[in-house]
């Protein structure tokens, strides 16, 4: 089954999720290593967004469990849950800014919830800091609807960074960004990795994967097709991942070295049943991300 | 819109405060109006029954509520102990010899608990015992006129006061008529030996009182509330008399219908009937006049009852019954007048409008 890593920050054990009657994740077991930037790859509808949301505890699995540093999310007390939320953050594919709040309040809310001792001036100071980091330079009193999609994305990344989290989930952070903004977000990701933060990244941008990913998880039809270090996955010869791997290979070798760990290719433990097969097809149509 | 959002706190605060303020004002006004905060003085009394005096019953004095029943309990001796409150403004009215009286509405409109202040100088201390009017103490107070009991100026009492003599008269007349008829029957049976003249005298005396009563009754017609129970008792008495009359009449009629028994008797020159018949219809005219008076009095009653509305079909039917009997009496007497040999026979009577039905129909006008 899955790779037995030394210190997974998030671990999924036999996770199955359903959405709208379709099975999205099928008995998924995978570990995300502490301090690494892991890219989750897969075609549209393969379940990568679902995997990310389940790992972040936003989707409760129908069966199986999700562990944060060895502790099941389902068994969290309220304080533990709050701690987990204060140490993690999530960047949504569609930004998901709160439409009826100003940009300031959108970014300030996590601080107000988790750093309630901070005064308003401190909060404003901190917000200016993170916005500068992502390169947002519009007003703070604006509402999300008044911003372009790219600006919204930057604000949502700033919101994710404002608590200085240890684990960041990013769902397609590059979408809707112009080249400049992309570059700055890449710099942010670089800085996160340099700071030893864990990053889980869902993206279709192979350039980003090539540049920032330490590890790769490839998901196909709701199952993990491959998971492991970048170089090893790229070097592997597994039919299910061939297309993606080929695109990564085309980018050539990377300058930096990968950390130690053997390649793991996760295959389905058994052949999918008839019902699951039909659900697969449905899931392909269903999931947009 | 912008203004509202900017001043949301202030607007909402005002919105809530005004509502709460107004609610408090209403509750305070309610309290003041319904005497939540005023002091009440507690007194005790004792009744034979708890009927009509449940807790909360208002205590009235000359139409004003001066207090209310607080608690009633059934004692070991099967008496009802009553604790009641008198409002502070009326406390000085609670003087020595005050009494309570439960006045039951005669037509089923509930009851009133009346307070009659005593004529004593001394204001009674809180917790004192105030007797009920129907107890020995209460009666003593009433007899010695120690309490201020207002004249019964309510229409009901006046009506009852007027009706009673009328009914008494009607009843007395009927008794006399009955006696006369009995005599007539006996005469018809050939048993009578006594002087008919004395009977006739009695009858005319009784009858003479009736018209006065009838005149008094007509004044009462406008007062439209009556004491059902009392009236019913009174009327039942009348009905009993009327029934006796009708029984005698039936006998007389039967006698007359039987010519075989009647004719020999009539032909007997020593029979008392001869005297009866030879007095130039004097007796008959007297009786007939009397019956007319009784009928008039019954008509007056009927008018009174008509205005008493549909609540009393029972009385109406009683009266109807009485009236029918009286009509029969008249018929028979007329038949007698046409005797000895049933000259014209007993006349067919035109059916009169039923009293009972006319009252019922009156409801829908």
């Amino acid at each position, binding site marked *: 089954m899955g790779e037995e890593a030394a210190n997974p920050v998030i671990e999924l054990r036999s996770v199955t999720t359903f959405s709208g009657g379709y099975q999205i994740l099928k008995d998924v077991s995978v570990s995300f290593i502490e301090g690494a930037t892991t890219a989750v790859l897969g075609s549209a509808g393969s379940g990568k967004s679902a995997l990310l949301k389940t790992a972040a505890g936003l989707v409760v699995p129908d069966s199986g469990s999700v562990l944060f540093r060895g502790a099941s999310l389902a068994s969290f007390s309220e304080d533990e849950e709050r701690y987990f*939320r204060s140490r*993690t953050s999530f960047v*949504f594919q569609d930004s*998901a800014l*709160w439409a009826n709040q100003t940009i300031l309040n959108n970014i300030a809310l996590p601080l107000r919830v988790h750093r309630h001792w901070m005064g308003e001036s401190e909060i404003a100071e901190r917000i200016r800091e993170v916005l500068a980091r992502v390169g947002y330079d519009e007003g703070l009193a604006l509402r999300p609807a008044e911003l372009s999609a790219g600006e919204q994305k930057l604000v949502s990344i700033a919101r994710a960074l404002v608590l200085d989290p240890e684990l960041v989930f990013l769902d397609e952070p590059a979408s809707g960004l112009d080249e400049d903004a992309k570059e700055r977000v890449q710099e942010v990701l670089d800085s996160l990795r340099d700071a030893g933060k864990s990053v889980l990244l869902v993206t279709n941008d192979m350039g980003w994967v090539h540049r920032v990913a330490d590890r790769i998880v490839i998901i196909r039809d709701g199952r993990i097709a491959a998971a492991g270090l970048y170089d090893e996955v790229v070097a592997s010869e597994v039919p299910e991942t061939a297309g993606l791997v080929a695109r990564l290979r085309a980018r050539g070798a990377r300058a930096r070295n990968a950390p130690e760990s053997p390649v793991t290719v996760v295959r389905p433990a058994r052949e999918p049943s008839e019902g699951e097969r039909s659900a697969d097809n449905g899931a392909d149509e269903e999931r947009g991300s | 819109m912008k203004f509202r959002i900017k001043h949301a*706190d202030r607007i*909402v605060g005002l*919105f809530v405060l005004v509502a709460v303020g107004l609610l408090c004002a209403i509750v305070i006004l309610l309290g003041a109006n319904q005497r939540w905060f005023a002091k009440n003085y507690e007194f005790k009394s004792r009744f034979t029954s708890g009927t009509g005096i449940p807790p909360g019953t208002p205590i009235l004095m000359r139409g004003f509520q001066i207090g209310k029943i607080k608690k009633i309990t059934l004692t070991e001796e099967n008496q009802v102990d009553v604790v009641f409150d008198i409002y502070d403004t009326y406390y000085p009215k609670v003087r020595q010899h005050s009494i309570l009286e439960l006045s039951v509405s005669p037509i089923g409109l509930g009851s009133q608990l009346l307070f009659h202040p005593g004529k004593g100088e001394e204001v009674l201390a809180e917790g004192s015992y105030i007797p009920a009017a129907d107890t020995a103490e209460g009666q003593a107070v009433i007899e010695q006129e120690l309490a201020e009991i207002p004249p019964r100026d309510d229409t009901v009492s006046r009506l009852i006061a007027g009706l009673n003599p009328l009914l008494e008269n009607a009843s007395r007349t009927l008794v006399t008529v009955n006696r006369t008829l009995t005599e007539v029957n006996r005469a018809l049976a050939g048993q009578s030996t006594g002087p008919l003249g004395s009977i006739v005298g009695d009858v005319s005396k009784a009858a003479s009182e009736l018209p006065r009563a009838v005149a008094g009754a007509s004044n009462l017609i406008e007062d439209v509330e009556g004491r059902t129970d009392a009236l019913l008792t009174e009327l039942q008495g009348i009905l009993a008399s009327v029934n006796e009359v009708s029984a005698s009449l039936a006998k007389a009629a039967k006698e007359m219908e039987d010519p075989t028994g009647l004719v020999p008797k009539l032909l007997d020159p020593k029979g008392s009937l001869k005297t009866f018949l030879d007095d130039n219809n004097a007796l008959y005219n007297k009786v007939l006049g009397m019956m007319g008076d009784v009928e008039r009095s019954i008509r007056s009653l009927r008018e009174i009852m008509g205005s008493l509305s549909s609540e009393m079909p029972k009385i109406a039917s009683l009266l109807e019954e009485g009236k029918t009997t009286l009509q029969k009496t008249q018929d028979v007497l007329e038949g007698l007048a046409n005797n000895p040999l049933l000259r014209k026979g007993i006349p067919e009577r035109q059916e009169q409008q039923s009293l009972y039905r006319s009252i019922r129909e009156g409801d829908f006008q």
Partner: protein
Amino acid sequence: MIDSIGKAVRGKLDSFLYGLGFFVSVLRETGRFFRRRQVGYKVLVMQILFTGFEALRINAVMSLGIGAAIIVIGTSLLPQFGQSQLLYTILIIVITRELGPLLTAFVVIARSGTAIATELGTMVVSHEIEAYLSVGVNPISYLVVPRFLGMVASMLILTIYFNIFGLLGSFLVVQVVRPVGFQEYFRNLLTTLTVSDILSGLGKSVIFGAITSVVATYQGFSVTRASTEIPVAGIRAVGQSFMLCILADVVITLMQYV
């Protein structure tokens, strides 16, 4: 056939239990709302502004109209039966006990029930709810509780205003058409009105507010992902709120009179 009935019943039961669970968690979070000074305070104020203050005008017009109609009809019709005193009883039963809370609830449902359901539905579709979850904000305590409290408070306060406009304001309206003695009117009104009338009306308004807000938020959250579900959720929120409020009204009234 039997299977489908069984399935339908089970489905209904499940959704009923889920709704009940939702209601219980709303109540639990409401308890906490007062204990910790939450960021939801501002939402509460805005909710009272939108649901309560902004509905005041239509509420006032309605209660003035109904109150005035009752007074005009009552003063012309009732004396014919010798029952002039009944006017005050009818006014209080209609304005304070029965129609006041129910009509206020209808106005609030029509205005804010739909608004809440569609707003929350939109938030679900645009992943704003997930965004709240991701930063550790409980959507029930942050989104539902202020709306719940705001709606209950608004209903309560609107019902008070309905009474004031319906009982006192309508008196002034009637003065224009058919003058009624001020002293007489208010003394009779205050004698007939009891605290239990007021409490009954206010109690109903609290229950209606709770029903409406819970149904509206529940329906808002029931949207899953498509924006086409949002208006459907709004419609369901209104329909269900109406039904439940009327049912609750019947039950409460029966409890008081039977």
